[in-house]
C-alpha cells in the first residue's frame, strides 16, 4: 500500500492498524492529517516546528484512545477528523496558555494552562524513558522494540534470534528489568 494514501482503508482497518502500530497505516494517517494541522497552526501564529510538536502530541493522544477502545468511528473519515480536532484543540489551548502567561505577567487573572497535569507527567516520564532506553544495549533495544512496538510474539523473537521460547522470555524480562532500574536511577 502506498504510504501516502489511506483513502481505500475503512475506519475499522485504520483503527486496527493503529492498534497494532502498523507502520504503513501510521505513516499514511500522518501524511494525510499533518499538512492540514500545519496550515492551521501557521495561519494561527505558529510555525512549522510548533505544528510538528503539537501534531505528534495529538497523534499520541489519539493513538492511546484507539488502543484503549475509547474512540468509536462515526463516519468514513472519523479518525482523520478526530486527529485534526485534537491537534486544533491542543494548539488553541497552547495559544490561550501563551496569552495567559503574557497577561498574567501584567497582572491579569489566570484562565487555564495548555496541558493537563497527566500530559505533563507523561512528557516527563517519556523523557526519562528515552534516556534509559538509549542506555540499553543494542540487542535489548531491538528485542523490546520488536515485542512492544512491532508486536512480534515471543515465539517469533525466539525464531528470529535463534533462542528457545524460554530464553526469549528470560531475555525480555532481563531487558525490562534493566530499563525499569535505569529509569529509577
Amino acid at each position, binding site marked *: 500500500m502506498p504510504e501516502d494514501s489511506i483513502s481505500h482503508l475503512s475506519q475499522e482497518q485504520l483503527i486496527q492498524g493503529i492498534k497494532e502500530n502498523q507502520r504503513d497505516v501510521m505513516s499514511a494517517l500522518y501524511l494525510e492529517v499533518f499538512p492540514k494541522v500545519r496550515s492551521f497552526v501557521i495561519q494561527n501564529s505558529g510555525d512549522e516546528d510548533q505544528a510538528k510538536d503539537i501534531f505528534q502530541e495529538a497523534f499520541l493522544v489519539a493513538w492511546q484512545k484507539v488502543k484503549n477502545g475509547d474512540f468509536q468511528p462515526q463516519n468514513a473519515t472519523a479518525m482523520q477528523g478526530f486527529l485534526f480536532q485534537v491537534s486544533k484543540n491542543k494548539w488553541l489551548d497552547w495559544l490561550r496558555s501563551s496569552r495567559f502567561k503574557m497577561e498574567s505577567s501584567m497582572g491579569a487573572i489566570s484562565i487555564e494552562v495548555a496541558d493537563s497535569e497527566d500530559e505533563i507527567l507523561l512528557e516527563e516520564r517519556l523523557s526519562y524513558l528515552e534516556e534509559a532506553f538509549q542506555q540499553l544495549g543494542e540487542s535489548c533495544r531491538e528485542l523490546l522494540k520488536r515485542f512492544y*512496538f512491532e508486536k512480534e510474539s515471543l515465539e517469533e523473537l525466539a525464531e528470529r534470534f535463534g533462542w528457545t521460547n524460554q530464553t526469549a522470555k528470560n531475555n525480555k524480562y532481563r531487558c525490562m528489568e534493566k530499563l525499569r532500574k535505569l529509569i529509577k536511577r
Partner: protein
Amino acid sequence: MSKELNISPIEYELIEAKLDGTLNEEQLQALRELEAQDADWSLKVEEVKTLRQDLESYLVKAELDKIHEEAYPEKTPKTRKLPQWIYAVAASITLILVGWISFQFLFVESNEKLFTTYYETDPGLITAMSGTDSYEFDRGMVDFKEGKYEEALALWQPLLEENPTGDTLLYFVAMANLELENYTESQENLELIIKGNPSEFKQDAEWYLGLIYLRNGQTEKAKGLFSNSSKPEAKEILEKLE
C-alpha cells in the same frame, strides 16, 4: 515509580498476562495468592503497566519522528542558512587573501634572499688612510672593523652632528647601522650621500641603498640604482629581477 520493588520473572509474567487478559487457570490461581499475600502487589502491577505503556508510547513517538523526517526532510541544514552567494564571496575573498599573503610572503622572502645573498659588510678603511684627522673617527673605524658597530656609532654620531654632510662619516655611519639592521637610519644616510656633492662613496652608497630598497620591496627604485652601477653583482640582480 518511587518505591524500590523487586519483581520476579514469574510475577512479571503474571502481571503481563493479567494486563493482556491472557491468564490461564493456573496463572489465575497463582495471581490470587500473590494478591492476598503480597502487600506491594498492586504497586507492582501499576509499575509494570506504566512501564509498558510508556515504553510503547516512546517507541510510537520515535516512529513518528522517523515518519516526519522521511516525509519532510529539512530543506537546508541550519548551518547553511546564509544565501549561497555569500559562501562564494567568502571563498573568493579567502582565495584572494591566501594568494596575496602567499605572494607577499614569497615576494618578501625572495627579495630578502637576494639581499642576504649579495650583502657583504664593507671592509672599512685603513685607519692611517682614513682621510680624516679625527682620532675619534679612527678609533671608531677600529671598532667597526672588529665588528663593534655600536661602539663605532657611539664615537661617530657626535662627529656627524658636528659635520652632517661629511660623506665618509655619513657612509660609515650608514654601514654601521646596516650591520645593526637599522635599515631606515642607514637608508637616510645613504640617500644624503647620493643627493649631496660628488663623493668617492657614491657608487658604494648606491649599491647598498639598492640592496636596502630591494629588501624593503621597493623593487623599481632598487632597479634604478642597480642599472647605474658598474658592479657585476648589480647586473646579476637585475637579471634575476626580470
